[in-house]
């Protein structure tokens, strides 16, 4: 099988999803509660459930990813076919030094949920906050879904995946965000970065790189 994301960006829309209460509670930093039923406050439990239900009708997961061959490993940068500057930093070099390819990815949950958070903020901040937390968790969730698809492509081709490394972490500066989005053709899913701050809009979004690590045979 040829590597399909080498030929061009792969776009995914309508990513199926389930909102896991337990994960949402964790995102809200409520330790120990495994489910809404276990929560010590009935009002809180009801409100979070309401936010989850609302989120179901607002989230639209979409993503794009594209794979590039790694052509050179420099001390401070990994050079890929599309760019000699994007994959910079010592963490990056550590991550991708034993890789043949790198998949760039970007995803978001759509603009409807953040817009509703904003509208709700004026009238009921608690509800806005719960919805925000569901949304932020789901942005990560969408990234995991893409991750699964990419991982499967990696394994099929006889490689191991690296962990997912997001732009803006460690020494991979956020100033690389616009180039990353350009290379994955993020405009296809309506995702762009603000000038200067490089914040992605819609804001519940994730961008990252995953490496194709050579698996040495036993």
């Amino acid at each position, binding site marked *: 099988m040829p590597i399909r994301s080498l030929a061009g960006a792969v776009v995914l829309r309508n990513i199926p999803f389930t909102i896991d209460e337990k994960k949402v509670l964790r995102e809200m930093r409520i330790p120990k509660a495994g489910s809404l039923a276990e929560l010590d406050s009935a009002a*809180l439990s009801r409100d979070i459930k309401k936010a989850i239900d609302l989120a179901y009708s607002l989230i639209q*997961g979409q993503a794009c990813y594209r794979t590039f061959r790694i052509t050179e490993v420099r001390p401070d940068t990994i050079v890929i076919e599309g760019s000699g500057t994007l994959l910079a930093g010592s963490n990056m070099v550590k991550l991708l030094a034993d890789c043949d390819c790198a998949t760039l990815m970007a995803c978001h949950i759509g603009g409807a949920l953040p817009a509703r*958070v904003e509208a709700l903020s004026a009238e009921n901040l608690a509800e806005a906050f719960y919805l925000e937390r569901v949304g932020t968790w789901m942005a990560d969730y969408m990234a995991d879904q893409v991750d699964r698809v990419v991982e499967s492509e990696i394994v099929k081709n006889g490689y191991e995946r690296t962990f997912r490394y997001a732009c803006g972490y460690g020494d991979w500066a956020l100033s690389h965000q616009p180039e990353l989005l350009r290379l994955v053709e993020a405009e296809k899913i309506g995702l762009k970065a603000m000038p200067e701050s490089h914040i992605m809009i819609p804001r519940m979004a994730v961008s990252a790189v995953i490496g194709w690590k050579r698996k040495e045979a036993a």
Partner: protein
Amino acid sequence: MTGHFLERVRREVLLLDGSMGALLQNRGLPAGYAPDLWNLENPAAIEAVHREYVDAGSDVILTNTFGASRLRLAEYGAEGRLAEINRAAVEIARRAAGTRAYVAGDIGPLGTTLAPFGELPFDDAVAIFAEQARALAQAGADLIVIETMFDLLELRAALIGARDAAPNLPLVASMTFTTDGLTDTGTDPETAAAALETLADVIAVNCSTGPDAMTAVVEKMARTTRRPIGVQPNAGLPVQREGRTVFPLSAEEVAAFGTGFVEAGATLVGGCCGTTPDYIRLLRKTIGGRPASPRAVPGGVKITSRMKTVRIGPGFPFLKIGEKINPTGKKAFAEAIREGRMDMIVAEARKQYEHGAHALDVNVGVPMTPEAENMARAVTAVQNIVDLPLVIDSANVDALEAGLKVYPGRALVNSVNAEEEKLERVLPLVKRYGASVLGLVSGDEIPEKAADRLRNAEKILKRALGMGIALDQIVFDVLALPVSAMQDGSRETIETVRLVGRELGAATSAGVSNVSFGLPNRPLIHNTFLALAIGAGLDAGIVNPYDEGMHRAVEGASLFSGRDPGCRRFIEIHQAKAEERKKPAAEAGTPKSTRDRIFEAVVEGERESIQALVRQGLAEGLDPFAVFLDAMTPAIRHLGELFGARKKFIPHLIAAAETMRKGVEILSPLMESAGIVEKKGTIVMATVKGDVHDIGKNICCLMLRNYGFAVIDLGKNVPCEAILDAAAKHRADLIGLSALMTTTMMQMKIVRDAVKEKGLPYKIMIGGAVTTPEFAREIGVDGHGKDVGDVTGVAERLVEEARGAGKR
């Protein structure tokens, strides 16, 4: 080759071939070069590989056309030579096969994702597959193999396209499963088999994993469908060795699984990546020509989603189809559809799922709306959030088809009846998309007598069978009638359940809510009807999943109708319920004062009740200041302490803060008219320029207001000048700045420098994900707050400092 391929593969084991790519590379195919082009450029090499396989004992060889579809050939600019390439490939294979092997035209995935998940429209995919299948069929292929598919929807498109182009050739549908036993898009082997058996003649698994993981897949498929099963493992999971992809298992290791495959139910066995003629030779030796193993396959009508299969028929759990996605008689719902909104549909889908529906009916028929388009959107939206099988419900054939095109599973089409026009228009759709169908036993009119309804059922069945739609694709709707108006007819409905079951051996369903029109206590009528009908043998119903009584009626009636062996399900459900009832109810306790109840409402975040409580307190003569100072303020401070002790968390804090705000809404006008309310201090809050994250800051504002500060919230993405203007205008004591990212937090320094430069009197505090006390010190601001729990403390301290310094 003697005999028809399909007849043979039903009876005995036939051998496929192994990998082509690696053998061509040995013959000089450059890495990365399209093997399909070699059909024209180096036919001798291809023929030699085929010959090796035939000599090794392959009964079926696959043409070298895995990537010879328009879309894939376009990657090399060779799409114009599609017919030529596919024809050449069949001819080469035929030369090598002679009369010793069948030639299978090979089709692979398109390398893109179909809408609605991806971008390629379903119809385009069908046309692309049809084009290649036509070329293969016209060149004389004996059968078509569609393989290495990981998306059920794409495979459906391929099968439909191939059937269009080659109506008489056997079709083999082969999917790829990962080591967790699912396809990349989450389909399990049972569901793949159930969804594909109506479209393909042989169902298979290939590529992706080694042989060990595949035996279980074969077993699951063989237990689901009566179709012959195929299997083509890789020579293990690939690894990279010196820059090359290598498949580690030897021919002996792979062949050792042969017997297991056959015992699990496979009759078409070969190899995929990494296998060579040696592998086939050994497989031939171990299993070649063996008779097919006997298989036990349960009956029932199957419907599936992408990830789930349910069965309808005697002995299976009664199937509850949720009725709620339907605009009939629901104004708000119809309005949402008219506006093109899917939110209500999604909400009902979730709710029905949570209330235990097994499948969902989807009806979006609203007059004067584009129903086909809405159906496609609704089916897509529902699938995004629940994995239940769907019943696509419309009187409009185009809407049915639009729904089927975005649905990867095997849907239940609702519905056909015995009217000529319906039969002619709906059954071809059912056939084409391999769906199951609900057959209403009405004709031009609704017959009263069961015998007449049976006649309609027979008519539908006969027509369906004639088109190649099987009995296990049809569920008969026995026509539940309003008992208030048609008492005899209603009795006949129950009789129809018996008759259709007995005479046709077919599954039955009913739209339960119809029975109660015009009568009081409708749920009782539904559930009585359900119990009677299930007793008579009803297999499924379109029901209201929100009615607990419905679930109880089904559980009870299932005991008497062979649907709950050993009463296991019943015991399980009702034992759990009994446990629940044993739990002590919350103790009533002594009646509390209104002040205490206000305190508690704030602590518990009881937003709904706070305003009523405050009003009650005022009516009882409590002073507004007392409510604010002696009930609410201690409550929020108490919560702050619990937060500090990690007994309550940020969500609790926010719920309480919002509750307090609602209470204060009532108190404010009273307090203000009673006298000047002394504010603790004035704070201008803003998320800095370039940053759009403001919920964290908003929460801080709310909390500060509850603590008695005057807060001017400027929102997000606020430039320095606007902050300074507002601070001047409102004579602020303090400026609070928020930023979430390193790229925006430097704006804080800009504000700070402007304040210092102009010698302005404001203190500055900062907060937000990336900020730290060190950063605050570094840029020379006065304070840092880490979260909503300490923002008030920081503000109190800074305002005091500001005022104490006598700046005012």
